């Protein structure tokens, strides 16, 4: 639904506003690298603007800090209504390595609602382009939550009910549950 909404609302172009709320400038440089001719995102209609009032998308870098949380919230509220928020970098996604520092509130989503996450420290320019392409609907997202389970516990003493005795031969059936 969000995808269809995106395609309808932002059919022509995304104008992005680039907000750093206390990051180390690494993600800033990668975002600016996206706008260079190598990863020319203006062919998709993405353009960097200087004011949040002109922007459709806010690109957040850096964690939400005590000193900048208010300004970040004001920048978000200044944007016109169909708006998207991208959290770029591991600081904006989860709070960064200094997540438990006194001046860091945490991830950006503690201050403003986030629509898309691009993890990485810093994310490659390709990763940022990929995240924006996922948001616009050009490509599908690749990641999914993974859950491994060691199902085959080959120890009969933990599953005595599964043992079947036939004379000297003991048949053991592998269980599907813990």
């Amino acid at each position, binding site marked *: 639904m969000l995808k269809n909404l995106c395609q309808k609302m932002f059919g022509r172009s995304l104008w992005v506003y680039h907000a750093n709320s206390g990051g180390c400038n690494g993600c800033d440089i990668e975002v600016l690298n996206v706008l260079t001719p190598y990863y020319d995102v203006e062919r998709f209609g993405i353009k960097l603007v200087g004011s949040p009032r002109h922007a459709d998308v806010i690109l957040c870098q850096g964690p939400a800090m005590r000193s900048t949380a208010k300004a970040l919230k004001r920048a978000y509220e200044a944007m016109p209504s169909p708006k998207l928020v991208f959290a770029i970098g591991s600081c904006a996604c989860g709070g960064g390595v200094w997540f438990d520092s006194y001046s860091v509130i945490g991830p950006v989503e503690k201050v403003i609602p986030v629509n898309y996450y691009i993890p990485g420290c810093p994310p490659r320019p390709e990763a940022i382009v990929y995240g924006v392409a996922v948001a616009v609907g050009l490509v599908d997202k690749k990641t999914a939550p*993974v859950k491994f389970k060691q199902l085959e516990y*080959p120890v009969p003493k933990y599953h005595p009910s599964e043992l079947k005795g036939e004379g000297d031969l003991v048949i053991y059936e592998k269980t599907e549950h813990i």
Partner: protein
Amino acid sequence: MSVMSKLKETLICLGAGRATLPYPFKAEPVPPNFRGRPIFDSTKCIGCAGCANNCPAREILVFDPCQEVRIVKYLGRRCTYCGRCADLCPEKAITMSHEFENGTNAITDISQTLDIFMSTCQRCGRCFKGAELMDELKMKGYRFDDLQNDRWIFRSQAYLEGDQVTDDIKIELEG
């Protein structure tokens, strides 16, 4: 003059060709030593929780819901892909993959959960440990639970002849 300079610039630009990479439509190769998202291998993991202890971002969590099962959770929100967990893992169960296209709309998409079976001592109820320190050195590092008898896999089958070293020392001491 200005027209000529513009024409010259046009010629230079035509000669330079196209610099833009066809990225989102065509995959881009990464350098071979690139560290992307860590991938956990549950079949190799022994549940030592060394990765959880050494993660600078504290993104690997360990839960012990019961005696035999240990849950290792990698959340990956603030992971900086430093590769310390992969360096430290004694069983090489963590590999730093070349995945970097992790842009999602839900942060839980990056998480990985491992349910690890920890075999325990029947007497004390704690996790397995080698009989002696010398035996531990010889061991391969993971438990092998045989159907007939629980045992360990040894690293090599070659042993020193008995009392060879101590004999040498005795000779030196006597001399």
